[in-house]
């Protein structure tokens, strides 16, 4: 058995020698063999030399030695070693683990064998040392000597004393070893070591006895570092550590340095215990607490070292041999230095965090990690960030996957809007507020710097959409399913992945929202219907409605009844292509009367309405509805004028073949002029309608369609596009509000109530809206006059017929019907008329009829003139419009330069006249004032 072992050892030695000693190619076999044998012998002799038996065969002992050595030279590796060590222990093989470790320990920090010997020329070849332990090359074998002295003094082999003395040159490498060469080393002095030793002795002899002694200070130091008062180093209050006065300045300065982490720890500990205002504050405290625990672990290790060192103190030695123990105040300072940095940084954060809240806290910590030049600080802050951001990411997750804002302390950058805000009230008053854009808002100050503003906007939109889908669209099932399937744990770190997730979530939610809007809530159908009915896109329906309602609406507004209106509406729907529209659309269509005011007739008050309910009302807002209504009222009025003019025109044309035939030049002339003006008016209305319906509404509609049919259209885009659509219609459709902002609501209210508010009209006297309504009113008045002329002509015709019959009967009486035109050109003076009037019973009626003609002529002339002047002013305004489409309207109205556009010099000078004209409802006074206004304008 032992023979077998010997064999194995021998072969192992063989291979070791061949491995470590490279064969010299110059030597021949014999020499090589000799060398090998020599080495073998040498090794044998070393191995067989009886070793010191006192080395305890304890695996822990060897590992302790290594650990201690590593802690002193390279603390980070110590942890790694203990990991490796536990792994090694768990392995089933190897019976002599301690011995192997011991071997490694012995060999530690040996010089690299591949480096050539620095002293090679001077050295004797190896065999000189045969049988003797060779003096090692100058190494830093210090640890060995030192630790063996402290822990296993019995095991020092004799060569270690040798080494110890020799090693003084190696000390320079290790700053921590300064205290090492102390007098009790002098037992084995060597020349080279003597100087140092002498100095140390001198130092040691001259060292003042401290009060309290360094050992006491060391013993109490761990407590101080934990922020606890001790006998020698009591804390006076939270921020003051009292140092004993008896200590010399060097020690005091060391203690000053050591006091810093102690005080910082104390402050941080109280900060951690202080109540936080929010989740992020709490997480910051937790993260700091974790770091503090790591600090305490360090202190515990330190305390272990201190205790071990103190227990092995040699009472007899100077300074109680404290320098030999390996733990001194100076060393403690070094050990705690890195920790102090961490504590300092944390206390800075803690200080700054008091005024910060929520996302700002993250920005604060992130600021340290991203924009601090010191990599240690950056890494530290980065580590903190992972813990600090956890609640933030929890909120974020709830928000982008569930659409719920679970943020009890208002720390997230999305916030529920408070209804009492001033800004909100304003937008609410304007009807632009809706569930979509008034429920939540982004607080820019709270967006943490770990995410970009773009990103924040996206996150905001995702959550908002989910919330909207759940609460307004009533599709919480989908939201729940979605959050179940796609919910992911979000945490700080991998920004790229996070972004892809968010993008994904964004796409999914937006798609779903648009899908819901389209399929479940028929948003696009509603928009189409609004255009068809409210913006008069459906021509046959509107024509039929107007025709069937015309008789009704001519009556005063008070005589309008809802049931007749709805009945007519129903009739119009049934009689036109509207009947093929879906029920969903048709049941929203309603006819009603606007607020009545005195003197209105049905035309002024009638309106169609399209009822929009949630959730579509986020797109077609209250404001949007009002715009639609405004446009409808305007278009309806134009349509009505067109309808009225067309009716009159038809009557005239029919009449021209019958009742209007006359031989009176005067009357014929009047009729001719009237027809001319009528044709002008019809042309104007036609152009206006064409412009609004085709140039304005259709082109805006096409634009809207293009925008909302885009691939990645979001609800926000849709709302924006729709608002733009309405704005462009109202602006280009000459309804534009280019007034100071706060008049808008007044004006809109006025419009909605039939634009009878004089105050509003004063404000808007220069707008196209007012100009156009003046024009339309003039046209209506003109039409009334034409109707009057028509009736006069008819009665004149009747009178002539009667007169003819009477004349036939009374042949002696001579009278010419041409006298009827005696307004100024009659060659027969009024005597004839008088006689006619006085002469017959029917003559009294004829007299009245006759006297009406000049007034009618005058009125027609005035109204025609007014119309022309107003139109010219309008054209003048249009010609200088920045908008091409509106200029085009001017051109198409005046394509053959019939009118001379009048450029108004100053808009205010036209004011008073226009006001009078606008408020004058009486026909005569209106015309007079109108002409007065014209003259004033011309001037």
């Amino acid at each position: 058995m032992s023979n077998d072992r010997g064999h194995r050892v021998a072969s192992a030695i063989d291979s070791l020698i061949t491995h470590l000693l490279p064969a010299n190619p110059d030597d021949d076999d014999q020499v090589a063999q000799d060398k090998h044998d020599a080495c073998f012998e040498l090794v044998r002799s070393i191995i067989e030399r009886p070793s010191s038996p006192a080395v305890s065969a304890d695996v822990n002992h060897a590992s302790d030695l290594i650990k201690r050595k590593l802690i002193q030279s390279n603390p980070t590796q110590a942890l790694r070693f203990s990991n490796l060590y536990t792994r090694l222990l768990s392995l089933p093989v190897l019976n002599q683990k301690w011995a192997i470790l011991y071997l490694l320990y012995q060999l530690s920090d040996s010089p690299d064998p591949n480096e050539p010997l620095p002293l090679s020329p001077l050295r004797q070849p190896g065999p000189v040392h045969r049988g003797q332990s060779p003096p090692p090359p100058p190494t830093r074998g210090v640890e060995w000597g030192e630790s063996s002295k402290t822990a296993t003094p019995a095991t020092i082999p004799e060569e270690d004393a040798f080494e110890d003395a020799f090693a003084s040159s190696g000390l320079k490498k290790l700053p921590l070893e300064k205290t090492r060469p102390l007098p009790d080393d002098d037992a084995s002095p060597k020349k080279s070591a003597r100087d140092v030793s002498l100095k140390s002795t001198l130092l040691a002899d001259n060292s003042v006895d401290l009060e309290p002694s360094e050992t006491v200070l060391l013993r109490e130091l761990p407590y101080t570092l934990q922020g606890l008062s001790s006998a020698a180093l009591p804390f006076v209050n939270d921020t003051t550590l009292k140092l004993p006065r008896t200590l010399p300045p060097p020690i005091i300065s060391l203690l000053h340095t050591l006091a810093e982490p102690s005080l910082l720890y104390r402050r941080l500990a109280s900060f951690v215990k202080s109540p936080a205002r929010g989740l992020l504050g709490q997480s910051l405290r937790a993260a700091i607490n974790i770091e503090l625990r790591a600090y305490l672990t360090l202190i515990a290790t330190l305390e272990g070292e201190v205790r071990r060192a103190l227990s092995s103190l040699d009472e007899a030695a100077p300074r109680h041999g404290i320098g030999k123990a390996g733990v001194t105040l100076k060393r403690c300072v070094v050990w705690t230095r890195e920790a102090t940095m961490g504590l300092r940084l944390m206390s800075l954060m803690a200080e700054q965090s008091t005024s910060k809240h929520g996302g700002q806290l993250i920005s604060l910590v992130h600021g340290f990690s991203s924009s601090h030049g010191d990599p240690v600080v950056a890494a530290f802050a980065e580590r903190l960030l992972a813990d600090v951001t956890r609640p933030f990411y929890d909120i974020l997750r709830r928000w982008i996957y569930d659409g719920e804002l679970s943020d009890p302390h208002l720390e997230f950058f999305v916030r529920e809007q408070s209804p009492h805000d001033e800004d909100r009230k304003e937008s609410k008053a304007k009807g632009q507020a809706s569930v979509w854009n008034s429920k939540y808002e982004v607080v820019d100050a709270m967006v943490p710097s770990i995410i970009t503003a773009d990103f924040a906007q996206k996150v905001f939109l995702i959550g908002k959409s989910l919330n909207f889908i759940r609460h307004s669209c009533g599709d919480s099932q989908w939201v729940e399913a979605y959050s179940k399937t796609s919910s992911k744990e979000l945490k700080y770190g991998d920004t790229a992945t996070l972004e892809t997730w968010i993008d994904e979530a964004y796409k999914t939610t937006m798609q779903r929202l648009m899908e819901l809007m389209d399929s479940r809530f028929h948003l696009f159908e509603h928009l189409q219907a609004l255009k068809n009915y409210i913006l008069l896109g459906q021509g046959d329906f509107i024509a039929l409605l107007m025709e069937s309602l015309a008789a009704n609406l001519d009556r005063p507004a008070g005589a309008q009844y809802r049931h007749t209106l709805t009945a007519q509406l129903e009739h119009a729907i049934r009689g036109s292509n509207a009947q093929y529209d879906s029920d969903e659309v048709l049941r929203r269509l309603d006819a009603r009367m606007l607020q009545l005011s005195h003197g209105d007739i049905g035309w002024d008050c009638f309106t169609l309405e399209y009822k929009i309910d949630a959730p579509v009302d986020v797109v077609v807002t209250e404001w949007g509805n009002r715009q639609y209504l405004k446009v409808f009222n305007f278009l309806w009025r134009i349509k009505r004028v067109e309808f009225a003019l067309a009716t009159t025109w038809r009557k005239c044309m029919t009449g021209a073949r019958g009742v209007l035939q006359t031989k009176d030049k005067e009357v014929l002339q009047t009729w001719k002029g009237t027809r001319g003006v009528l044709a002008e008016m019809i042309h104007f209305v036609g152009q206006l309608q064409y412009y609004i319906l085709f140039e304005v509404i259709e082109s805006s509609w096409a634009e809207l369609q293009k925008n909302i049919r885009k691939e990645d259209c979001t609800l926000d885009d849709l709302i924006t596009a729709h608002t733009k659509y309405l704005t462009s219609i109202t602006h280009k459709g000459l309804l534009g509000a280019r007034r100071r902002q706060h008049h808008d609501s007044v004006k809109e209210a006025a419009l909605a109530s039939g634009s009878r508010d004089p105050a509003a009209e004063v404000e808007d006297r220069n707008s196209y809206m007012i100009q156009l309504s003046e024009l339309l009113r003039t046209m209506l008045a003109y039409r009334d006059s034409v109707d009057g002329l028509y009736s006069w002509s008819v009665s004149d015709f009747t009178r002539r017929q009667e007169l003819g019959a009477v004349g036939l009967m009374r042949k002696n009486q001579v009278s010419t019907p041409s006298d009827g035109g005696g307004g100024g050109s009659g060659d027969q003076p009024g005597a004839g008329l008088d006689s006619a009037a006085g002469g017959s019973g029917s003559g009294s009626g004829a007299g009245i009829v006759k006297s009406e003609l000049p007034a009618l002529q005058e009125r027609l002339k005035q109204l025609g003139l007014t119309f022309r002047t107003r139109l010219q002013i309008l054209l003048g305004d249009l010609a200088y419009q920045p908008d091409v489409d509106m200029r085009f309207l001017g051109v198409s109205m005046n394509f053959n330069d019939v009118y001379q556009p009048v450029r108004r010099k100053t808009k205010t000078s036209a004011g008073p006249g226009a006001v009078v004209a606008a408020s004058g409802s009486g026909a005569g006074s209106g015309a007079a004032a109108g002409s007065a206004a014209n003259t004033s304008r011309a001037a």
Partner: protein
Amino acid sequence: MAPPDERSEKQAAAQQAVDILHEISTILNCHLDRRTLSICISMIENGVSPEALASVVKELRNEAQVQEAHAQEAQAQAPPVRRR
């Protein structure tokens, strides 16, 4: 003889042990390569005292360095010899 898979298990464990020890030796700056390390392990397992082995390794290293130095000297001297 142990069944083959138990054997291979043992081998794996030994391999692991060498890995760990090699890492430790790197931490400790021992400058041992894996082969030397495994020879040392086997010697220790066979009862060689670690201290003695340590001095053996150091000694052999010295020897190797000395040899190398010699070889270099020889090389440095060789060319003039040839010239002569």
